[in-house]
């Protein structure tokens, strides 16, 4: 599958080394679901998987997608540098997204760590757009410091709504920060949800996800109600090359969102 040429319409800084690109796909409807990803190419440098972080203002002629990129290496840094009018390659959408249908009628607990909020953002938009279909909706977000909080204005706007609980915590802060300090797992015990009828969506660094899962299980959630987004290096993104193998599964085809009871044994392993 060859990438099509897409163009950046806008670029917004969302944190240290983090940029959100508003991308004109040139297609009318790519039907990207919350939790899915695209392969983005910085021409002449390389191609990497990046999750959808929202939908832009699409027109009848072209759909716009948002991707939030943290510059960690050559390809992500080149993508993060792209400005309005610049071209990039785009293949996708790929993968299995968040279980929005299974969440209907249940309390939804979303636990995000660091950049892990980006792939969860479309799921939050989905929940809030059809708020009546779900029980309590809670977002627990942990990040490094107040300066690293992603999508800050949007989080503040959501906080003003009365139909979603939002708790933000940082690992450390200077005086001036009035919010919580401590790891995100400590917020789980204070969240209000009925563990008999709840579903959890978790995304963040793998260590953070492991400890979050423990906290969710301690709070009474069963393994088949916890979903996480797994990251592995990718090449083809269509289940052919085996690059993204994760035990018996392929992350590009069977994930990135996976149900915890299906990957329980893998998450504990150090190197796979």
């Amino acid at each position, binding site marked *: 599958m060859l990438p099509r040429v897409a163009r950046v319409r806008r670029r917004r800084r969302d944190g*240290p*080394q983090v940029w959100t690109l508003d991308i004109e796909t040139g297609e009318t409807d790519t039907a990207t679901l919350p939790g899915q990803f695209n392969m983005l190419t910085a021409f002449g440098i390389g191609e990497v998987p990046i999750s959808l972080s929202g939908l832009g203002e699409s027109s009848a002629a072209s759909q716009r997608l948002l991707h939030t990129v*943290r510059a*960690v*290496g050559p390809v992500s840094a080149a993508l993060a540098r792209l400005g309005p009018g610049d071209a990039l390659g785009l293949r996708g959408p790929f993968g299995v997204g968040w279980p929005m249908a299974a969440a209907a009628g249940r309390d939804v607990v979303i636990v995000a*760590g*660091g*950049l892990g909020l980006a792939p969860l953002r479309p799921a939050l938009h989905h929940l809030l757009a059809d708020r009546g279909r779900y029980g309590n909706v809670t977002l627990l977000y*942990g*990040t*490094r410091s107040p300066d*690293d909080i992603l999508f800050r204005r949007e989080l503040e706007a959501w906080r003003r709504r009365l139909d979603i609980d939002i708790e933000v*915590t940082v*690992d*450390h*802060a*200077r*005086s001036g*920060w*009035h*919010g*919580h*300090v*401590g*790891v995100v*797992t*400590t917020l789980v015990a*204070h969240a209000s949800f009925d563990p008999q009828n709840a579903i959890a969506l978790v995304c*963040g*660094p793998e*260590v*953070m996800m492991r*400890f979050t899962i423990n906290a969710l299980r301690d709070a009474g959630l069963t393994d088949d109600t916890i979903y996480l987004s797994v990251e592995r290096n990718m090449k083809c993104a269509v289940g052919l090359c085996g690059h993204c193998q994760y035990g018996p599964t392929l992350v590009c085809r069977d994930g990135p969102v996976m149900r915890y009871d299906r990957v329980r044994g893998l998450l504990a392993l150090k190197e796979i």
Partner: protein
Amino acid sequence: MAIEGLERIVRAHPFFAGLDDSFCKLICGCAKNVRFDAGQYLFREGDAADAFFLLRHGRVALEVSAPGRGSVTFQTVREGEIVGVSWLIPPYRWTYDAKALDLVRAIAMDATCLRQKCEADHHLGYDMMKRFVPVLVERLHTTRLQLLDVYGTPA
């Protein structure tokens, strides 16, 4: 406040869930109600650890000061939780500052009084240890996670 009122509050606090009646009477002899305005310190690093606090209302920031970095908050504690474990372990000295972030109401437990009662009644001492050790382990565990700096930007 009357001892009965204190007993009711102490028994209702999550930290003392399921506390034996006789233990409750003993420890309430060491308890008093306290309040701190936002910005006031419950204690400062280096001071004698002469109390611990059952938070009933408000939040407390635990801070350390580092040269050139000012005060850094490494944890916030809220109602239903406790502040202070250094009173248990010699040399009984606070190793950080505890600052009220908003109006804080708490029960302060006099550490000298409590240590004496725990020495005199090891059943009480063991009950207290069983309540404090999980808090210590949890804090150790969360500190380890913070040290890993899992959200850090790769170089």
